[in-house]
């Protein structure tokens, strides 16, 4: 299905990442946003508050982040595409109800414009230290999808991709931006509405007597309904069976939670989106995401000029992590260089998947600013030895 032209600001614009994300959401058909202001994400909701009234959307500033997360879950059941926006401290608050979204299988998008942490940290400065929290933040077993844009243009495009993934897999999708991308102003080209492809919500065509809210076919994704259409469904955060009724037995737990995890894990290859450059014959591969993938570029170019064989992988989906590809490449290369604005998060995944076949060299940065490309160059040089 194509985008609704009312929400698409076609043209060439000079926008910052936060505004581009808002434009992406509106282009994707998002029409209900509940948020709580937190630097550096506030601009996203400010833009939506400004533009929503003219396209039939509703923005409400809720009283806190927990309310925001729950409001978007309710809004999704009400039939709209929904989104909320936050940063580190708010992300922590939303964790319990992110779990509710996973358990109830609600399609929605949660944007985290990362900042320096922990706790209040560096509210106006960049960080990338929520990446593991994105995967493991809520309690219990679950799998989540997380995307990481590296420019305002990507913020626009990957917000749309986030909505599409959330509708395809009926799971909340995280958009892990960082403050640098969020507050960076660059050219953003927004196409016409007919060039934007959207995934519509998979609503059931069965009559109410035959419909079971959590019965699935081989896709492992159940069909959804809109509240108020006469289906009179029940859904709960408790472990439930196909009818949506709570059934608290180990068998039901196994059946349900395994499906919730498998629906992402078994479809990982379709979800994973990475960009590989010059991997063939490389000795060292630099893996980065978000703003760091751009900061690493001068270091990589310099290393290549000096004759080093450096490949690069830019992660667009950070979760699910490209485990198979990393394991496969680890047999052929000497080392991974993982620069990230944290003290080692995605690098732990790389190390795990490398299985000892290649070294993993972390180039950490506490946050507050981006890396000095020199440090990344030094790490690459070290790796090539």
């Amino acid at each position: 299905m194509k985008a609704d032209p009312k929400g698409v600001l076609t043209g060439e614009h000079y926008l910052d990442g936060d505004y581009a994300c808002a434009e992406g959401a509106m282009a994707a058909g998002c029409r209900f946003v509940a948020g709580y202001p937190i630097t550096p994400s506030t601009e996203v909701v400010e833009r939506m508050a400004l533009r929503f009234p003219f396209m039939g959307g509703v923005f409400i500033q809720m009283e806190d982040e927990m309310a925001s997360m729950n409001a978007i879950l309710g809004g999704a059941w009400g039939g709209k595409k929904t989104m909320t926006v936050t940063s580190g401290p708010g992300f922590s608050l939303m964790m319990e109800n992110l779990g509710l979204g996973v358990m109830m299988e609600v399609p929605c998008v949660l944007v985290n414009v990362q900042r320096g942490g922990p706790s209040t940290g560096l509210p106006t400065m960049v960080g990338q230290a929520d990446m593991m929290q994105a995967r493991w933040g809520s309690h219990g077993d679950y799998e989540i999808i997380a995307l990481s844009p590296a420019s305002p243009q990507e913020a626009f495009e990957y917000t749309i991709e986030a909505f599409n993934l959330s509708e395809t897999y009926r799971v909340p999708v995280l958009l892990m931006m960082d403050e640098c991308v969020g507050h960076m102003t660059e050219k953003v080209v927004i196409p016409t509405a007919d060039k934007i492809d959207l995934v519509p919500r998979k609503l059931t065509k069965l009559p109410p007597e035959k419909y079971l809210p959590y019965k699935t076919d081989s896709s492992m994704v159940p069909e959804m309904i809109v509240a108020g259409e006469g289906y009179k469904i029940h859904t709960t955060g408790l472990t439930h069976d196909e009818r949506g009724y709570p059934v608290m037995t180990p068998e039901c737990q196994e059946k349900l939670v395994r499906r919730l995890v498998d629906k992402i894990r078994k479809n990982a290859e379709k979800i994973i989106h990475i960009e590989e450059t010059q991997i063939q014959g490389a000795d060292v591969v630099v893996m980065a995401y978000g703003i760091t993938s751009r900061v690493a570029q001068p270091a990589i170019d310099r290393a290549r000029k000096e004759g080093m064989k450096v490949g690069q992988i830019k992660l667009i989906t950070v979760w699910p992590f490209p485990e198979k590809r990393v394991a496969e490449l680890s047999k052929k290369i000497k080392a991974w260089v993982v620069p990230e604005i944290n003290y080692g998060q995605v690098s732990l995944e790389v190390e795990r998947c490398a299985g000892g076949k290649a070294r993993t060299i972390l180039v950490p940065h506490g946050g507050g600013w981006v890396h000095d490309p020199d440090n990344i160059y030094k790490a690459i040089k070290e790796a090539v030895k």
Partner: protein
Amino acid sequence: MEQIVHEEHPMESYLRMDRIPHIWCPTCGIGTTVSCFISALKKYEQRSLEKVAIVSGIGCTGRVAGYVKLDSFHTTHGRAIPFATGLKLANPDLKVIVFSGDGDLISIGGNHFIHAARRNMDITVICINNFIYAMTGGQVAPTTPLTALASTSPHGNFEQPFSLPQLAASCGAVYVARWTALHIRRMTNAFLEALNKRGFSFVEIITPCSTLYGRRNRLGTGLDLMKFYYDNSEIQHGADIRSLDIEFQKKIIIGKFIDRERPTFIDSMNTHLKGKYGDKYEWYGEKIPEVPVKAAG
């Protein structure tokens, strides 16, 4: 003794019969409240039942959503009201009811409660007040009267409890009433009035909890508590909202306290933006109410 053959109970079409019998204890007042709620739903005519959704939190009362045959949502602890807010704003045609307990709505959900009332969200909140956190074993609640015993106040509660009607009224609720599980007909009427009311309507129902509140405080069974309500509740419609505190095993003042008009959140949003942008803004949700509402500001 007469042995009557089982026929269908008149409320069965409103219940998820595959889940009856429910989990509530013998002599619990929640079943009575749900029964009156269903009686009110039968008389509710503003919308078809398809358009009615019910949201509950966690706790004994939180299980209500699971037994009523409507679009029902059993959410996390304290978050029924924001969930209901999202549901209503995304789909304004729905009638959204929040049916939850005192601990769920007022303690962890307190922040959401006061803001939804302030905004005058068009939802109906039914709060079952049994003065305790029953499901988890009888812990003290923000409504537990002074000196009452609970598992986390084993020496007696020394914290001043909330007066729920006062809280709701001061935050801006447009309909505030309190009844007990004994007052079944007035409770049903209150539910119907609350459902028909536009805006944040709040009904508090004092119910017996025999297994936790009753047992810990040696108050007997639910029937003994009902007899207590019979002897000690006093109807004072329109009573001063500041006089409604409940002391341990003392008089309970019940009745309808607030019934006023205020524009709802959606009304205010529409009136304000329409006034400012004219034709550029399309009215959101239900058609323009016939009773003119005073614009915000």
